[in-house]
């Protein structure tokens, strides 16, 4: 009866799984637990003293493989808080429709202005919903951030033997 034993084995497997707890998560109703490093959308940050962090250096625009970031650089002027001359960005747009979420812009930002947030951008019906203007990027700052920021990544990448400690995870 070697023919029938494997048939019963297969049936036994399916019945055994009948007893197991289903793994379906009711996604829209119960939010899904995400890893601390989960990164979906983008945000621009303010510095501690309230200035906009972005200095309009266009490094992120140059490195973006799918060319979705456009930065409008404004003239250099003193910053009201520190009094020193610094660059400003008067226009910053990021088109999520073609962004491949490669995190290179966060890595190359010298002033840690752009960071990724852990909340996916709400799906929209028009193309504009996926088109993050400067205003929306600054609004996203309130959302929970992903732990990786430019300086922390560069620190963890430096080949010096005393390697920097692993980037500290906020208590997600």
């Amino acid at each position, binding site marked *: 009866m070697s023919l029938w034993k494997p048939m019963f084995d297969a049936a036994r497997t399916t019945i055994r799984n009948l007893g197991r707890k289903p793994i379906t998560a009711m996604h829209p109703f119960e939010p899904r637990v995400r890893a601390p490093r989960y990164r979906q959308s983008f945000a621009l940050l303010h510095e501690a003293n309230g200035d906009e962090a972005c200095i309009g250096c266009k490094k992120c625009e140059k490195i973006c493989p799918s060319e979705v970031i456009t930065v409008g650089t404004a003239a250099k002027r003193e910053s009201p808080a520190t009094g020193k001359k610094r660059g400003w960005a008067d226009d910053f747009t990021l088109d999520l*429709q073609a962004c491949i979420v490669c995190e290179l812009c966060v890595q190359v930002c010298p002033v840690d202005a752009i960071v990724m947030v852990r909340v996916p951008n709400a799906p929209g019906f028009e*193309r504009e919903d996926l*088109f993050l203007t400067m205003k929306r990027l600054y609004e996203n700052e309130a959302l929970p951030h992903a732990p990786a920021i430019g300086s922390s990544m560069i620190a963890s990448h430096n080949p010096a033997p005393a390697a920097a400690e692993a980037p500290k995870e906020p208590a997600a």
Partner: protein
Amino acid sequence: MIGPDAVLLARDRFGLESSDLGPTLPRERLLEFARALYGAGYVYLVYISAMHHPAAKQGETEVPARYTVVYRVRDLARGLEFPFRCEVPLGTGVPSLAGVWAGADWQEREAFDLVGPVFENHPDLRRIMLPEDWEGHPLHRDYAINTPHHPWR
């Protein structure tokens, strides 16, 4: 590891020095070399690819535009590998190796389709990636370099 017997074969019968990129065969003797390699046990075809060089000025000599067709084969039993290549000016074709390795058929069709060298007496030389009626070969160095990147918005 570069196969020593192939290096000897290239030097003795064909009088070609082979660097780590392999010898550069004249197109007339390519088929003969390929059959010799196959006979020596190199039955595993890794890939066939091509590269386009636009016309360039080396010093004052005018180097015409040419294709470099690159081959790489392996002998799995002895764990040996042997790359070789063939340089051809733009107009002329390269003899097809589909008769020697069965896999060369599709490899050459892709090289012809994307880069452009024509493979003579290939059993079925059609474009494989692009539609049949596509004109031009995308991987030419001067193919659609500065087409405006249509703004996403």
